[in-house]
């Protein structure tokens, strides 16, 4: 490897999907926090993100980062109309489980648990995979739709829409599921290909 690419031979890597918090280390050098330009700081949207190497790495293309962040925040946090926060996080977690992004799944499984109180159901998705019965048809339909939408070539079809409708979702709710699941195809690919997850030092020492 050249100096441009960083590798971590002794990293404490996770070995399974988890709802516990993980760190993430970049393979390319992020912009140093004290070297962020005004345009790059603006692109972070939330100032606290300047602490996170993932966002400072994406700040190398500030226009793309800015638009991506604003897309993300509206799909997941705009609660006027549409489906609940828990189901959006569930769509993100299911997409991440299917694509194989352990980091993204940890963040959004934990968020789904926090929003729903259904820790055991969420854990079943992580442990058993996307075919797990999560206890009610709305959640099962959201997971199935998210998984179908992640497949390439595109094969998500009217049967998937029909199942969401049968579970009681209206068009605005279905659009939120599509938005949340589609967005994690974007997020998973960045997280998986620009760096890797690590178990925080305290937990790594304990196992």
């Amino acid at each position, binding site marked *: 490897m050249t100096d441009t690419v960083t590798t971590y031979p002794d990293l404490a890597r996770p070995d399974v999907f988890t709802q516990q918090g993980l760190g993430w280390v970049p393979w390319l050098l992020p912009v140093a926090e004290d070297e962020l330009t005004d345009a790059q700081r603006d692109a972070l949207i939330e100032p606290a993100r300047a602490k996170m190497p993932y966002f400072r790495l994406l700040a190398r293309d500030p226009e793309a980062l800015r638009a991506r962040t604003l897309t993300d925040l509206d799909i997941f946090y705009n609660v006027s109309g549409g489906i609940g926060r828990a189901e959006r996080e569930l769509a993100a977690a299911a997409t991440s489980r299917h694509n194989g992004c352990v980091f993204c799944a940890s963040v959004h499984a934990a968020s789904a648990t926090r929003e729903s109180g259904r820790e055991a159901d969420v854990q079943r998705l992580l442990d058993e995979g996307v075919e797990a019965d999560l206890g009610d048809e709305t959640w099962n339909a959201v997971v199935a739709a998210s998984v179908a939408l992640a497949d*390439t070539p595109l094969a998500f079809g009217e049967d998937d829409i029909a199942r969401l409708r049968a579970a009681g979702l209206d068009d605005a709710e279905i659009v*939120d599921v599509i938005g949340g699941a589609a967005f994690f195809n974007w997020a998973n*690919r960045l997280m998986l290909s620009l760096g890797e997850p690590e178990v925080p030092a305290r937990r790594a020492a304990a196992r």
Partner: protein
Amino acid sequence: MSTPTADIIDLLAGIAPGDALAAVRDQRAQARENAQRSFEALLEPADPGTFSLAERYAVASFVSQLHGFAEATAFYGDLLGDEAPALTAVVAAAAASAAATGPFGAYRERRLQGESTDGARWTPDAATTAALQTRLAAAFTHTHLLVFRPREARAEAIQALVDAGWSPDDIVSLSQLVAFLTFQLRVAWGLRTLAAASVAVPAAVSEGA
């Protein structure tokens, strides 16, 4: 530009102003606007720098074809045809040879290795590499990895891009481009599917009208 660019997701989804789904999309106006700005930042940047428009459109055309999305293939094919017509046939041939089904791939995580799956891993052959040239050929290899088996991405894949002349800034933009397209195409496809499922008028009634 003197006129605003059309909303590309609406275009790919077949949504017209006034359609029911246009009103639904308006409820997430910030997401709609910034999905469009993402398209502009990655595919129509004011200053493309060392990641040329021809390279961006070639990658977008390749991604669309790998997804089997006819409207997107036509749209990005047109952009590529205007910018670099000589690449159109090369990209189409590459996409045909690169067809695969995803997501698949081997897990690095020890307790997930039982879930590892196999599929068609693709790199451009000698003739395709010669036609695309080193830089774009490396980008296509990386694009195929990201589209079909992102869980197999490793630092070595980034190193391969560096070796082919990609700067860190351009690697971030390339990664954003491919990842964004996997979002944009899915939103458009999902909306198109939803719109089709919403046409409840029986054929006999509309024919009689």
